[in-house]
């Protein structure tokens, strides 16, 4: 375990570094924060002056070195969109909302996908299986912005059961969490279904039956634990996908003020500093999650050695 971490931590740092550099390059190539910082009426000289103040007129390499120096001290500069605030602390202001949304979405995904997958696997090819499989396909192939819009129109505008934005959890968190969860439920339930079918047809299950083990124990202890291995891998990916991308769409559609929502604003406003800070934090979370996935693998499967 210690040796594993000793190897994975530097690897993770390289990934985080690579992503950070990449975002630095992309933002410098495409954007100019000054454009949105000053009023439209600002003159070219005023803009140039502002650029000079921010050091954006220096050669790109010089900018890069000072950027690296700052990043090592976890200084991502001052946000231009949320004026005057350190970019990283803006991220930390909004991160809890995102974590709340992702946690709610993923708990929902787990709570729905396991029973649905188990139900479908009970009689492969049966009516229930076919219905659930089609439903899963619909769920996982629905673009999230579309799904989100439908949910907003149906439940917020028409029925007025829920509201967008923030507020009491039951009125505000439910819809975005559902929207984030549904495609994941589709994929996870399909996985539960197919791995349970495989496990229940496996030789060791036949041996368990021959031993006289009750069906309940075979299902809940033996087969489910084996099916848990691919499930944990996919769930890890779902969490990563949600954190690193889907929240942008979902948070925007539901005006949920998390880092996905902020990322969209930062891009629209070409706020380099905020973009870089968001990407950095997301990269760190992804690296940590990957390590957690590996560790949970080890906990579930004695054949796995972490190296």
């Amino acid at each position, binding site marked *: 375990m210690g040796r594993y971490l000793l190897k994975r931590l530097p690897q993770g740092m390289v990934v985080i570094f690579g992503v950070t550099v990449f975002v630095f390059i992309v933002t410098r190539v495409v954007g100019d924060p000054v454009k949105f910082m000053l009023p439209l009426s600002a003159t070219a000289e005023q803009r140039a002056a502002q650029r000079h103040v921010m050091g954006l007129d220096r050669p790109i390499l010089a900018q890069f070195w000072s950027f690296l120096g700052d990043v090592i001290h976890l200084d991502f500069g001052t946000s231009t969109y949320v004026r005057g605030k350190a970019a990283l602390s803006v991220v930390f202001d909004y991160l809890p909302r995102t974590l709340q949304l992702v946690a709610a979405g993923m708990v929902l995904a787990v709570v729905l996908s396991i029973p649905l997958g188990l139900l479908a696997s009970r009689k492969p090819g049966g009516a229930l299986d076919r219905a659930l499989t089609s439903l899963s396909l619909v769920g996982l192939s629905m673009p999230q912005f579309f799904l989100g819009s439908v949910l907003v129109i149906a439940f917020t505008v028409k029925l007025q059961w829920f509201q967008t934005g923030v507020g009491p959890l039951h009125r505000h968190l439910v819809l975005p969490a559902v929207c984030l969860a549904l495609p994941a439920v589709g994929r996870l339930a399909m996985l539960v279904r197919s791995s349970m079918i495989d496990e229940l*047809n*496996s*030789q*060791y299950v*036949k*041996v*368990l*039956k*021959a*031993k*006289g*083990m*009750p069906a309940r*124990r075979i299902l809940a202890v*033996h087969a489910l*634990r*084996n099916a848990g291995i691919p499930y944990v891998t996919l769930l890890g990916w779902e969490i990563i996908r949600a954190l690193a991308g889907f929240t942008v769409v979902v948070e925007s559609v539901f005006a949920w003020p998390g880092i996905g929502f902020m990322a969209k604003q930062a891009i629209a406003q070409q706020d380099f500093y905020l973009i870089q800070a968001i990407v950095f934090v997301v990269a760190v979370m992804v690296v940590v999650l990957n390590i957690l996935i590996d560790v949970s693998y080890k906990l*579930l*499967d*004695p*054949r796995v050695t972490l190296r």
Partner: protein
Amino acid sequence: MTDADAPLLQVKHLFVKFFTRRGTVHAVRDVSFDIARGETLGLVGESGSGKSVTAQALMGLIDLPGRITGGDVRWHGQSLLEGDGSLLRRVRGQEIAMVFQDPMTSLNPLFTVGTQIGEVLRRHRKMTRAAARTRVIELLDLVGLSNPGQRVDQYPHELSGGMRQRVLIAMALACEPQLLIADEPTTALDVTIQAQILELIADLQQRLGLAVLMITHDLGVVAGLCDRVAVMYSGKIVELATADDLFHRPAHPYSAGLLRSTPRLDVVIPRLVSIEGSPPDLVSPPVGCAFAERCHLATEECRESMPGLHFQDDGRKVACWRPFEAEGPAPVTAGEGGR
């Protein structure tokens, strides 16, 4: 209300079918035999003849798309197939145990050997975790595993194929069953290990007095181990005789062919050399004798109507219109022929 006079196990006119996309596979067709207390019955036949399906049907282990479509299996005179399955649930793993063909996939990779043997004891003997563990170590010792105290906490992937098969045998013996069904317990193992496992089964049988249904390709195994032998061909039993009769005076041409393709009975050979031709498709089995197409002695009668399994004068049962006579010259002598 068990019948004390009834044989341990009676299989009566058993039929098993698989309803597949290709059609209905008639895997077991009217199979009947008995096993007495402490007896070893061999079940031999080519690949696909229905040995495993028969064995699994006895324990109610036929899964979809398969189904037992007829006949009965009686344990101490009571039907295992009728009723709500409570007898079957009680008997499985406790009174009848089974060892399968493939030790590599027969254990759950995520649990220790101790847990997997222990759960049988905990279920059927209501043992505590600690008591079960002590008993598991004894069992592992009984089946000849070295360091049982250490093995008990190992996972299947830490054991070799031969060791896993010993574990599976220990698991089968955990509740001291009256019948052990061994479905080709050695085919997946290499030759020296094969011999050890067979010796182990023979030894345990003597010590514990259990009956064994030994399923095998390998007539060498049968010769060394079995009291009686049932020869199976395309889902039917074609000959049922004492091991001695079968080896010296096979009555069915298929049995004779099987023997002819076994060069020396005292040597364990990995697989039978096949008889010319191949068995019929079980989706549409022939109306007459299934072996007729491959039989040198076949007549019109053989092709047109199916011979029943009938007693011969010497007490054996044969399903053949033209069986070799018990008195006549033995058509085959052991040792004749080659591979």
